[in-house]
Every structure is written in C-alpha cells, then in structure tokens.
C-alpha cells in the first residue's frame, strides 16, 4: 500500500553543529509530483539524499509507506532501498565511465538478481536507440546520458522517484521529453515524484504543488 515517502522534522547535514536543514518536514504523495525549489546551498540536495536513504539525518525520521526507516545507505534493507529511484544533476558523474549504456541500465537489475531482459524495453521508454546502448558515456551527449540514467532509475519500478536538478544540463526539448516519460510512468504505476529545481517556470508546469526551501530552513514543507 502506497501512503507516501515522508520526512518528519529531519535535521541533516555534514557536521552535527552546522546542519544544512533543521527540523524539516516534507511528504511525497503517491501519484503526485511535489516540487522543491530554493537557492543553491539551501539544502535541496541534502533533503533529496535523505529521502533517497543515501544520507542519515542527525535527527528526525523518514517513513516509507508508514514504515520508519532505521538504516541508511548500504545498510538500508533492500526492499526499502529499491523502492526509491534517484536522478542527479550531472549524468556524467552518475555513470561508471567504463560501462556501456546497456550495462549501466542493467546494473540495478543485475545487482538485485533480476533478469536483465528489460533493458531494451527501458531504453525504448526513454527513446534511446539500440545503437546508442553500445556506447560509453564519453561517446554520448549529456541529454542521451541522462536518458540512460532515467532508464536505470526506473529499472526496478520504484514507487518513488527523486529528481535532483535532473534537467539543469539539458536543453528544453530533452527536458520536456524526460518529464513526459516520468509523468507517463507515474500515470501507469501511481508513483510519487519529488522534483527539485531552481527553475520555477519548470516546477510550476511540472509539479502539483511547489514548496520552497530557504537558507537554514525550519518551516515544515
């Protein structure tokens, strides 16, 4: 049962005496897109990492469909970890340069012992041609690489997808195309999406509701 990905009063950062976000709450509802806006340095990416279970908060709790998360990163239980997908700003830093796009897209399937026969279907979903799947990251554009990252993020059919400045490096047409893919996935699966961007025109169009994160945020989202 999907009830939401919820951060309750989290305080998180990289040094306990200087948290980046303090007492912050935010819920990603199933089937909806929450937009998170704010200037650089305001803690948007920290919130994204906490909600993706990649960063343990100093205080506060994350609930995944009403189940509290107690362990983070590699220690998070597989069934929790694989329910959340994440996309980062720079696709180039997010893909092992030695992998072909085909290998990169198949990686989550392989790591979880699932059959890797869905790669072509996933590639088709993000409109990557078979010819591109044989290439390595340096042989494709940022837009094509981000398409591969989206295919990889959707490989395990996550219930929640976190897009951390996913479109910053992309042109308008690729942005519109990837957002359309995500919306379509959301319609089919009822997934919840957190869209993080400093582009308010994009969030106004994409998200069902937009919350702002300001420096040393303490307001509930």
């Amino acid at each position, binding site marked *: 049962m999907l009830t939401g990905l919820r951060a309750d009063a989290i305080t998180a950062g990289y040094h306990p005496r200087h948290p980046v976000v303090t007492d912050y709450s935010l819920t990603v509802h199933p089937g909806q897109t929450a937009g998170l806006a704010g200037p650089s340095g305001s803690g948007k990416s920290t919130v994204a990492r906490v909600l993706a279970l990649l960063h343990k908060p100093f205080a506060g709790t994350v609930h995944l469909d009403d189940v509290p998360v107690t362990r983070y990163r590699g220690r998070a239980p597989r069934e929790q970890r694989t329910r959340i997908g994440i996309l980062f700003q720079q696709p180039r830093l997010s893909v092992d340069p030695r992998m072909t796009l085909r290998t990169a897209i198949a990686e989550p399937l392989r790591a979880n012992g699932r059959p890797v026969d869905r790669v072509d279907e996933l590639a088709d979903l993000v409109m990557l041609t078979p010819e591109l799947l044989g290439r390595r990251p340096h042989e494709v554009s940022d*837009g094509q690489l981000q398409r591969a990252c989206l295919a990889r993020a959707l490989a395990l059919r996550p219930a929640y997808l976190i897009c951390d400045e996913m479109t910053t490096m992309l*042109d308008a047409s690729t942005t519109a195309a990837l957002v359309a893919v995500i919306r379509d996935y959301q319609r089919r699966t009822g997934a919840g999406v957190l869209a993080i961007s*400093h582009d308010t025109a994009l969030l106004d169009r994409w998200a069902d509701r937009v919350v702002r994160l300001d420096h040393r945020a303490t307001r509930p989202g």
Partner: protein
Amino acid sequence: MTELVLDHVSVRFTVPGATVSAVNDVSLRVRPGECVALVGESGCGKSVLAHALLGFLPGNAQTSGTATLTGDGPPLDLLSTSDRVLATTVRGRRIGLIPQSPAAHLTPVRTARAQLEEAVRVHHPADNAPREHAYRVAARAGLSPADLDRYPHELSGGMAQRVANALALVGDPWLLIADEPTTGLDPHLVDGLIEEFRRMVDDDRAVLLITHDLAAAQRVADRIAVMYAGRVVEVGPAGRVLDTPRHHYSRGLVDALPDRAFTPVPGQPPLLTDLPPGCSFAPRCGHAAAVCAVTPALTDDTHAVACHVPC
C-alpha cells in the same frame, strides 16, 4: 572596426572508423555592442565552435573556412593562427572564455585568490596592487573577499561560476565567449551575470553566449542563432526568432519551454558521424518535402533561415 566574422567554418574530427562533422559551414558575424546567443541541444556543435575560435581543438580536428578577428592590428584568422600567437595576444586579452563546468577548469591545488591574482599579474603587469585589482574584479562578479580563500572543491557551483566569470574578464577582452554560463545558477546570479554582459555590450564590446537555455538567451541576446547538427539553421533578432520562428526546429525548441506548450521535438538528433543527406532536420520534421533532400542554404536577410519550407 573590431568584429569577428565566421565564414563557412567547418570542424571535423577523425576518430577510428568514422568522421565526426561537428560544425558544418557556419557563417556568422559578431559586431561590437551586441550579444549573440548560439542555442541548440547538447551535442549540436556549439562548444566545438567556441573551442575552434580559441585554438583549443584536439589534434584529430580539421577545420576549414575562416574566422577573422579585426581591430587592434592586422586581421587575424583564428583558425590558422599559431598557438603561440593565440596564447600571447588573443586568449584572455581579445577573447575571454567562460568555460563550461567552471569548477573543472580551476586548478584544484590553488585558492581562487591565487588564480585570480595570477591572471591580474599576467594581464596587467604594470599594476602594482594586484591584490586590490583582484578584489575589484571578484566583487564585480559577486564574490566576497572571504570566498577567495577557498580551494575549488570548497566552492559551490555558483561560486565557481563567478570565479570563472571574474577570470575571463580580468584581461578586458573585446569579445567574451560564455559557454553555458547560467547552468546551475540561481536566478539572482543569472541576473547579475546578464547585467555584466549588458555592461560589456554597452561598452561596445561583444558577447557570444553559448547556451541550451532559451530563457537566458531571450533575456540577454540581441540576436539568436539556432544551431542544429552542426549547422546554423536560423539567425535573427532575438524577439523575432523566439516569437515568430521560421525554422521548424526553432519552433519545436520554443514549444518545448515549460511556460509554452512543454512538448518535446519528436525524434532524436542525428549522429554527427552519419548525417542524413540534405536537411539534417528533415527526418524529424513534420513539413519535410522532396525538396529537403537538398541541403538548404541560409538566406541572406536580417532574420535568416535555412529551410525550403519555412514556417
């Protein structure tokens, strides 16, 4: 008069088993007092063109055509000038570059201050107060003195961008080439950057803005050149290109904006190793006709288009 005239510039790379046609037959003029934006999707050849103008192409690149920089002495063809001449008279002095991903272009083992002061000493050897000069340039770019004590890995993306902007402007270049300078910047920093560009333009200098961000181009550019698969397919006054585009690709890009239709251009750009004959956009174009099998030439008017069946 100082100006930069690109005349039928092409850049090809030889890679094992293929030739990459990154820039194809681009003619463009940049005049004093104007900001020209070169827009197009990633991989369309925009950055390669910028690198060609500064002599930064790798050894497997071949260029043809000319890129003539006039003013301050005899005309100089940037594509055939030696690296030594470019390094000592052009880079940073007549043409400044704000590189893409600025954090990756800063020396990781030296502070921002050390790098900025070095640029001041090189470009203004007679200045006996390089530190104060560096402060002034940094302040104009929106940096505080304390920011300058940081190493590149301690800078946020926006701060690294401002350091790169400051570095590019130290030598008071006539032309500033800015490669995706607004990527990842907060709106108020974009505003500051655009003001800086306007100041340069009002001072009769020029800016060549390379970007995929049409909204940024719209705010600062006097003219917009739309590039597709290495070719300039449309060039004209910014307002007209955005409001009444003549090329179907430009129309598609404008329609993809989130505050417009938010619909992508159908299909994918062609591989630069395997460009279709004739108009490169024809396979994605809903208006393609038999005549599109012949490469359309760019027209010769103020709002030029390279299309047989323009909008």
